[in-house]
């Protein structure tokens, strides 16, 4: 096992290099112009726009720009943002806590909700509970997050005024009062994300449970006279949860992509919000840094998932 993990870690390095080259090429070739906002402004004529782009290093050939960028990454320097002209690292560090807070909480809650609902749904299949859970899950899946977010805002912030309409990133939790403020302003985004994540996860948990319920070992256990509850808890659950654990581990990086729309709707200054704004402003160094960090997370959590898998299911052997 130890050797397997070590080898996988070593393979990750060239993998990340390849990914970085692909990312860099895509972003360099993708259309966009950091000076597009000034396109029709006669006070910023084309030659000025070109000069600014040259000062941002955009006039150099692709491979040189890549070499400079990857050289910086190795030393922990992600370059400077076209928009703020400051280090990209500062921007990310400033925004990471907001993302981690809202998304971390949302993801944890959705896991905690999805597993029991999925299990009950599978065990009491075609019961009223199952139909209810299924219907709710599909509401969560078929209504896009931009829409659920909008509905929550209109109902709870505009009409009922229970929660603040604008997210205030300046709130620092230092006492009960600020804690309350933070909770109040986080409830809506967390709800939206939880609904969406839990809806999907429930379906997978339910499917895995159903897959294992009619297995022979379950029949055997039942035949031995074991009660339903311990059978489910000890046998079915354990086997069903193996792929679910993988899914949860694999899902961790996606909380960042899930964040994009939610942070956008609620204007939470997190990583997803930064990514969207940077894409639309063609602030390529920021986009690159975020996507590269995301890639590193994907690679890392895929490794975690594989290791977890091997630990939980002794039948699997990696060659």
């Amino acid at each position, binding site marked *: 096992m130890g050797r397997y993990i070590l080898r996988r870690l070593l393979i990750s390095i060239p993998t990340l290099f390849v990914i970085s080259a692909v*990312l860099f090429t895509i972003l360099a*070739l*993708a259309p966009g112009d950091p000076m597009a906002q000034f396109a029709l402004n006669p006070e910023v004529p084309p030659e000025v726009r070109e000069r600014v782009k040259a000062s941002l290093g955009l006039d150099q050939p692709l491979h040189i720009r890549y070499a400079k960028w990857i050289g910086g990454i190795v030393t922990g320097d992600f370059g400077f943002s076209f928009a703020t002209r400051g280090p990209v690292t500062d921007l990310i560090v400033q925004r990471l806590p907001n993302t981690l807070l809202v998304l971390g909480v949302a993801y944890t809650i959705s896991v905690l909700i999805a597993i029991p609902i999925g299990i009950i749904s599978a065990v009491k299949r075609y019961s009223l509970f199952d139909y209810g859970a299924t219907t709710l899950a599909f509401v969560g*899946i078929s209504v896009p997050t931009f829409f659920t977010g909008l509905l929550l805002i*209109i109902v709870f912030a505009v009409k009922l005024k229970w929660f603040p309409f604008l997210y205030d990133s300046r709130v620092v939790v230092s006492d009960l009062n600020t804690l309350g403020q933070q909770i109040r302003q986080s409830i809506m985004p967390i709800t939206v994300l939880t609904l969406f994540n839990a809806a999907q996860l429930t379906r997978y948990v339910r499917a895995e449970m159903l897959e294992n319920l*009619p297995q022979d070992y379950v029949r055997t256990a039942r035949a031995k006279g074991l009660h339903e509850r311990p059978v489910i808890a000890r046998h079915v659950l354990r086997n069903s949860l193996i792929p679910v654990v993988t899914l949860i581990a694999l899902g961790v990086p996606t909380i960042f992509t899930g964040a994009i729309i939610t942070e956008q709707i609620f204007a939470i200054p997190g990583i997803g919000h930064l990514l969207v704004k940077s*894409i639309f402003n063609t602030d390529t160094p920021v986009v690159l840094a975020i996507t590269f960090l995301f890639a590193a997370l994907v690679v890392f959590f895929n490794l975690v998932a594989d290791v977890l*898998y091997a630990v939980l299911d002794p039948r*699997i052997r990696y060659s």
Partner: protein
Amino acid sequence: MATVTRPVATAPENVWATRPPRSLWGDAWRQFRRHRMAMAGLVVFLTLIVASLIGPYVYTVDPNTVDILSAFQGPSAAHPFGTDDVGRDVLARALLGGRISIAVGIAAMLVSILVGAFIGAMSGYFGKADGPLMRLTDMFLALPPLPLLMLIIFLFRDPLRAALGPVAGIFILVVGVIGFLTWMPVARLVRAAFLTLKQRDFVTAARSVGVNDSRLIFAHILPNALSPVLVAATLGVGAAIITESALSFLGLGFPPDEPTWGRLLFDAQSYIDFSPHLAIFPGLLIFLAVISINYIGDGLRDALDPRKTG
């Protein structure tokens, strides 16, 4: 384990049976019909398809007629689903929009499932392929969708549009884009299932009697790994319908006046305060499509489940 007695494997040996021989699909269909929700799902889904195919010929109101004087009308006898911001009939647009939405949803899901299942199966079955294929999956997972989409439009929109016209060309582009950006979770799931299944007794047994690799993969292991794939497929249809609207928003999708359910829902958000009907109807249609596909998937899973055939 008893799993070796799958109907596929046993069918040829049933020559002595007094009953007429039963086919796998016949069995499956019998099983499927017993599943009430699956049948209901099938009826709803077929209705949606028929409505979007024939609907525009029966309900002949033109979906593109602008009538500013009757903008933002709620549902009425003249306009059962109401009218939009420039007075176009929402029902006519929803019927027409169903064609693209359902087609995009299913086609994109198929692309994503086929690619994902194939890569996942190869990766999980052949130890040697596992490393490279999973690293490829990692890479696709790591790609930033938005800039990638913009690059794809930039590279392929004009050639495809020139070759196939604005709607058919964009259809291929949209289906391709969604399919190739969403197969990764399927591949991971199938691979995970394969890793477990290939150690099971029935596989070992089959291999020991000389069943070759491709038959083992497609006839023996894959059917047992179908459950998560079906979930992914049903989730995928809904996601594809919604993603399509996001693509239009980036200027990648269909021409802006070509109605699709996702697009109608997307456009409705500006008017949600005073014209909720603009959002409710397309939203409901997406929901019906997704949930009916889910129940069909549920029924299929049961029907194809080798352990449940009685």
